[in-house]
C-alpha cells in the first residue's frame, strides 16, 4: 500500500512519513500544492493525507480539482482548520475523512486503514484468505494462527493483493503500489517478493495468471 503525504511543515512531514513507513506503507511526500498535484496525477496511491493550508495551490482547491477530474483515491484531510464550517467544506470538497491538528498518530493511522479498506470494498478490519490472516492494525500476518515474519516489501505486496482479493493484479500495478517514488524500482523484484511469500505462506496461496499478473482467491 502506497500513500502520499502532503504537508508543508517540514518537521511534521518527517514525523508523518516515518510513522506511516513504520506502519508498513510506502510513502511519498509533497511539500506544496503543485508537487502534490503532479504526484497525484502521475503516480498510483492507495490513499492521500492532505494538509489544507499549502503553498502554491490551496489543499481544498487541489481536492476539488482532483474530484472533478475523476480521481477517486481516498483522501484524509489533516489540517489546522478545525471549525465545523471548514469540515463541511472539506467533506463537500471530496474528502473521505477529516482530522484536525493536533492529532494522535494512532487515530490518523486507524482512519487511514479504514479508508483504504473501504475503498477496496473490505468490510472487516482483519483481512483473511484461506488460512492466512493479515491485520493492518498491527502490520501482522498469521498462517493458521502462527505469526509469519515478513519484510516491508513482502508485507506491502501481500497487503495489496489481499485488499484486492479475487482480482488479478498486474506486476506494474503491484510495483506502483509498493514503492515510494524515489526508490529504485524493478518489476523483476516483484517476482522475487512473490516467490518469498509463496515459500512462507504456501505455494498455491498466490496464483500466477499467465500474462496478466497475480491473484489471491
Amino acid at each position, binding site marked *: 500500500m502506497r500513500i502520499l503525504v502532503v504537508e508543508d*511543515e517540514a*518537521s*511534521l512531514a518527517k*514525523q508523518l512519513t516515518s*510513522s506511516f513507513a513504520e506502519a508498513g506503507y510506502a510513502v511519498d511526500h509533497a511539500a506544496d500544492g503543485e508537487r502534490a498535484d503532479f504526484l497525484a496525477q502521475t503516480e498510483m496511491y492507495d490513499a492521500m493525507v492532505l494538509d489544507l*493550508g499549502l503553498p502554491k495551490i490551496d489543499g481544498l482547491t487541489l481536492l476539488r480539482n482532483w474530484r472533478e477530474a475523476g480521481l477517486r483515491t481516498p483522501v484524509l484531510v489533516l489540517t*489546522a*482548520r*478545525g*471549525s*465545523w*464550517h471548514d*469540515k*463541511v467544506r*472539506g*467533506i*463537500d470538497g471530496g*474528502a*473521505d*475523512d*477529516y482530522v*484536525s*491538528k*493536533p*492529532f*494522535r*498518530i494512532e487515530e490518523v493511522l486507524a482512519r487511514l486503514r*479504514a479508508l483504504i479498506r*473501504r475503498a477496496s470494498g473490505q468490510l472487516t478490519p482483519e483481512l483473511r484468505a484461506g488460512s492466512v490472516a493479515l491485520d493492518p492494525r498491527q502490520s501482522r500476518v498469521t498462517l493458521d494462527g502462527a505469526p509469519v515474519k515478513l519484510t516491508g516489501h513482502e508485507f506491502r505486496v501481500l497487503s495489496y493483493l489481499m485488499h484486492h482479493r479475487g482480482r488479478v493484479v498486474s506486476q506494474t500495478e503491484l510495483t506502483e503500489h509498493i514503492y515510494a517514488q524515489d526508490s529504485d524500482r524493478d518489476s523483476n523484484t516483484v517476482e522475487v517478493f512473490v516467490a518469498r511469500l509463496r515459500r512462507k505462506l504456501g505455494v498455491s496461496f498466490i496464483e500466477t495468471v499467465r500474462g496478466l499478473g497475480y491473484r489471491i482467491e
Partner: protein
Amino acid sequence: MRLVSLKARILFGASLWTIGHFMIIAVIFLNLRHESSQWMFHQRPAAPAGAESSFFLRVLHSTAQSSAATAVIGGLCMYVGFLQVRRGMSPINQLRNRLAAVHKGIDARVGGAYPAEVQPVVDELNALLDERERRVARAVAKAGDLAHGLKTPLAVLAHEAQQVRAAGYEQLAADLDQQIDRMRRQIDYHLARARSVASSASPGARASIAASAEGIARVLQRLHSERGMLIEIDAPASQAFSGQREDLDEMLGNLLDNACKWARIRVKLTCSREGEQVVIIVDDDGPGIEPSMREAIMQRGVRADEAAPGSGLGLAIVREIAEIYEGSISLEASPMGGARARLSLPGQDLV
C-alpha cells in the same frame, strides 16, 4: 416617492405655512378692529349713509363675507405647508428606520432612495459599515492565522510526546499530552468565540438551518462511518438563523457530534419557530444525562484547570456562541430515550 429636493420642499412648505398663518392673523385682526363697525352694521342695516361711509361699509361688508373664506384658505395653506414639511422630513424618518434595521441585524446596509441632501449621509454611513466589516474580517482572519499557526507546532509536539512515551517516559508523555490537549481546547474555544463575537456584529446575516444541518450530517456520516449512524434532519427549508453560517455550523456541528458520540444508533434534529426565535432540538437514543450533571457538562472543558481530556467543551462553545447572539441552550431528557439539547436562537423566514 418622487425625490423633489429636500430644500425646495421644506422651503415651499414653510412658505405656504407662513402665508396661511398671515392670512388667518389678518382675518382675526380685521375682525377685532371692526367689531364695533360690524355691530353698527348689524344694528342699522337699512340706514342710508354718506358716500364716504358707504364705501367704507361696503369694504367692511365684503371683508366680513370673505373673512370666512380667507380663514379657510389660510388654514388650507397652513395644512398643505405642514404636510410638505412633514413629507420633506420623511427621508430622515426613513433613514432612522433603515438604520435601526441595520442595528437589529435585519439589513446589512442602509437601503432605500433618498433626496440629494440626505444621500451623501447614507453613502458615508454605508462606507463606514463597509470599512468596519473589512476590519472585523481582517481581525478574524488574523485570529484564525494565529490559531492555525499554533496547531501545527502542537501536532509536532504531540508526536514528540509519542516518541517520549516509546522511550519509556510514560509520566512525562502523559503530562505533555495533557498540556497539548489543554492548549488545543483553549485555541478552539477562543477562536470560535472571537469569530462569533466579530460576526454577530456584522449585520444582515442569515443562514438556513436545513442547509447547515444537512452539511454537518454529511460530515458526521463520514466521520462516524464505521458506526453506521442514522442522522435524521427534519428542518423546514424556510427557517433561518439571523446570524453567520460559520457560527450556526459550529453550534450544530458540536450538538450533532456530541449526540453521535452518545447515541446508540439514532440522532434526530428538528426545528420550529417560536415567535422571534427559531428553536432547534437535537435528540439521541443514548444513555441520557443525569439532571444533576447537566449544568456541569455545559461548563466542562472551558476552565483552564479542567483536566478531563476530550470531553465536553463542545457544549460550552455552543452555549457561548448562542449567548453572543442572545440565544440560549438547555439540556433535557429526550423522548427517544437519551439526551435532548434545545437551542434557541434569533430566527427569521427565508424569502
